[in-house]
């Protein structure tokens, strides 16, 4: 079965190369028959890659330890779901997963867009197959997933998957993230095809907007799931540490989000054409660059795989080449990209969207500089100097707050130029609400903490601005529903339905904003975090905030592929018993690796989080307690965000046909 996989990858490579030639020929000569050849090449490469993916999964399911990759990432004692998750637990498998997902996107693109975009399609296929070729070359010549161990090296059991990755979230988080990162290849391909053909009208970005929303949604979910995994598994009480790999997943989200906003300006006013193309190019190259960073080991990270010079050189050349070709195409077409319109006033929606774009890019640059800082300093001074989370926590919050502010402003001010009476009508209630909540939480936090420093000011501003934005959103809904109800025979619920159907982009967008605001409220909760480390004997108690924790007993874990101990703790909130918590200290025998599994009691207002740091020799337990307010709102936020994006993307009969119309 594994031979079949290796064979499939070998066959896919020449087919992809032939497809590129066919696509380029079709593009130059405008020969539709050759476009169809290239499209078929995509289907065939997709089929071969799927065969390779399945056969690797089967090798993992059957514990085929003849394969070096399987032996290094799996073991017999792991349950089947985790053996399957181990398929992408290492370098080669994660690259194959990348390619597999790209081919799913490519096939879907041919199936759904092929009919409408005959002029763009040849170059779209060329871009897709060129990217596939790169990964096929990597998988056949540099890191082979199907490489066999010499017979004398084959063992009866593998070395297992890193225990930290043996968690349910790890079954879906990498797939979500890859569905996000890889999916940006489709908008990239369309943008490039538009540049090559010079068909820079509304066609490419109408297609692209939809195909950007899909990976953008997956990426957002993937990023948050990663945070959730860190929170539940890594056991340091937090969900985000500005680790290079976290940054790598977050960086492409920024230009993609910027694009989704600025493309609206192009739609309404025909402006920012070059800028939008640039954002698409940037998004995809940042995806590749992030993958390069974390997969090449050039920046130290908990997630990084090993350094291999061949891999580094090949991958970096690929990233730079992609960027170079795209920018070159952009420069060649610059004459065709001039916009007839200009921004008329800083008090206009265009201006606020432009500012929004600037801030997104500023955040991107800040994160990129921070992540690459060790690389720069090593090149200049021979010493690697890193910046810690404090750097990011300094730079990012003010920029994010400004974005939050724009989230409230942008949708409410008019295109072109806003009038003073309009501003008063739109902003009186939201500003009042923001001030009330901001000042209220300032008084409350001051009483709780005694004093307020800059980090806490950020938190208070977040809550004030959140109240402001939420009020604007509800005001928009309220006014629109009221207008419809007054006008005719719709009841409020019907009116709401009509809004979500007929103006899905606008009213779905508000729901997305609401989700982001929820998450921001949750992030800001960290200003009230408390933690405490204590060593306690059985029967004694620790207090933290309004909670009291009593150490009951310590028990051995039933022996399996890990052993260890768990402690039972009774949790009281304001003296009422609320939960029994059982943090664990595990030892994974095979890898000789310990792991602390935290226990979390979670409510809408706060999380109470306990880690068993050590079970001491005298039977006492050293416990680390965290009191983390509002964390749940981050997870609630992403659910709201998904609902909002679904409203925006929902294919209503009236809108589905519009790609044909243009």
């Amino acid at each position, binding site marked *: 079965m594994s031979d079949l996989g290796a064979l499939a990858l070998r066959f896919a490579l020449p087919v992809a190369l032939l497809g590129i030639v066919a696509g380029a020929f079709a593009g130059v000569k405008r020969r539709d028959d050759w476009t169809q050849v290239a499209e078929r090449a995509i289907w065939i490469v997709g089929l071969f890659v799927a065969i390779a993916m399945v056969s690797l999964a089967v090798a993992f399911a059957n514990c085929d330890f003849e394969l*070096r990759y399987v032996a*290094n990432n799996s073991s017999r004692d792991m349950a089947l779901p985790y053996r399957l998750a181990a398929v992408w637990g*290492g*370098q080669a498998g994660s690259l194959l997963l990348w390619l597999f997902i790209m081919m799913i996107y490519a096939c879907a693109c041919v199936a759904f867009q092929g009919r409408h975009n005959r002029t763009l399609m040849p170059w779209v296929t060329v871009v897709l197959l060129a990217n596939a070729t790169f990964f096929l070359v990597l998988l056949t010549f*540099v*890191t*082979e997933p199907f*490489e066999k161990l010499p017979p004398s090296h084959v063992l009866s059991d593998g*070395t297992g998957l890193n225990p930290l990755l043996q968690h349910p979230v790890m079954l879906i988080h990498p797939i979500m993230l890859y569905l996000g990162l890889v999916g940006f290849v489709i908008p990239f391909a369309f943008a490039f095809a538009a540049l090559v053909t010079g068909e820079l009208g509304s066609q490419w970005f109408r297609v692209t907007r939809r195909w950007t929303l899909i990976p953008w949604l997956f990426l957002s979910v993937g990023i948050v799931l990663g945070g959730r995994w860190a929170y539940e598994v890594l*056991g340091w009480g937090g969900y985000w540490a500005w680790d290079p790999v976290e940054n790598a997943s977050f960086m492409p989200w920024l230009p993609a989000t910027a694009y989704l906003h600025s493309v609206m300006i192009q739609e309404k006013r025909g402006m920012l054409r070059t800028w939008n193309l640039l954002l698409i190019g940037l998004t995809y190259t940042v995806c590749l660059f992030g993958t390069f960073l974390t997969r090449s080991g050039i920046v130290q990270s908990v997630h990084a*795989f*090993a*350094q*291999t*010079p*061949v*891999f580094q050189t090949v991958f970096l050349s690929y990233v730079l080449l992609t960027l170079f070709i795209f920018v070159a195409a952009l420069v060649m077409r610059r004459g065709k990209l001039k916009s007839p319109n*200009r*921004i*008329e*006033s*800083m008090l206009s929606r265009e*201006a606020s969207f*432009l*500012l929004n774009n*600037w*801030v997104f890019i*500023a955040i991107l640059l800040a994160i990129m500089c921070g992540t690459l*800082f*060790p690389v720069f300093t090593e090149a200049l001074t021979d*010493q*690697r*100097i*890193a*910046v*810690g989370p*404090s*750097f990011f926590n*300094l*730079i990012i919050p*003010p*920029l994010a707050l*400004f974005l939050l502010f724009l989230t409230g402003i942008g949708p409410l001010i008019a295109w072109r130029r806003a009038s003073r009476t309009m501003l008063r009508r739109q902003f009186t209630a939201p500003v009042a609400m923001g001030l009330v909540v901001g000042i209220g939480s300032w008084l409350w936090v001051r009483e709780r903490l005694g004093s307020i420093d*800059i980090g806490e000011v950020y938190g208070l501003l977040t809550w004030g601005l959140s109240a402001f934005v939420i009020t604007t959103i509800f005001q928009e809904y309220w006014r629109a529903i009221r207008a419809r109800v007054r006008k005719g025979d719709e009841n409020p619920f019907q009116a709401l339905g009509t809004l979500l159907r007929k103006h899905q982009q606008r009213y779905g967008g508000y729901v997305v904003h609401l989700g982001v605001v929820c998450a921001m409220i949750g992030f800001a909760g960290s200003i009230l975090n408390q933690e405490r*480390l204590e*060593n306690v004997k059985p029967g004694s108690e620790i207090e933290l905030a309004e909670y009291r924790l009593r150490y009951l007993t310590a028990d051995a874990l039933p022996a399996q592929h890990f052993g260890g101990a768990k402690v039972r703790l009774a949790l009281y909130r304001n003296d009422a018993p609320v939960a029994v918590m059982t943090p664990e200290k595990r030892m994974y025998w095979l*890898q*000789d*690796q*310990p*792991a*602390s599994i935290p226990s979390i009691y979670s409510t809408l207002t706060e999380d109470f989080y306990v880690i068993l*740091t*050590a079970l*001491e020799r*005298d039977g*006492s337990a*050293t416990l*680390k307690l965290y009191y983390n307010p509002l964390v749940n709102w981050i997870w609630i936020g992403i659910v709201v965000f998904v609902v909002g994006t679904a409203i925006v993307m929902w294919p209503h009969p009236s809108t589905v046909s519009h790609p044909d119309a243009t």
Partner: protein
Amino acid sequence: MSKGTQIAVGASVIALLLGWILVTNSGGTVSFAYFQDLSSFQASAVDQIGRATRVHGYVVKGSIERDLQAMQVEFRVQNDPPHAGAPVGQTLKVSYGSLDTPDLFKDGAEVVLEGVLLSAGPDGVYHADKVMAKCPSKFEAADTTKAASL
């Protein structure tokens, strides 16, 4: 409004924000140097007394003592990874003022210490504010290099 003005307005908003950050945080420590190895650290130990440093080493086997009353952990570090039979060499005594040790912290673990050397010489004590431990078994590390060179 011309393109130049737009850019100027955008740039000045961001410059103002960044400037404000710098003003409010001058004197803050946001960056840190990577670690020194224990042997090079000890070679210049006298100069490093009282300065914030990062030191890399390995936990000497059997040296970890957890003091539950004082809520601290004491241990020694050595420069080279401990192998059976290999000499331990010069060690450094470390006092860590917390019981909050990472999961991977154990006999023989590779550690990076962040803290201050209080006194040099054989009785010198390194006062660690932070102890970071690395996973000793990087099985993929050795493996992919091999695969790449084949």
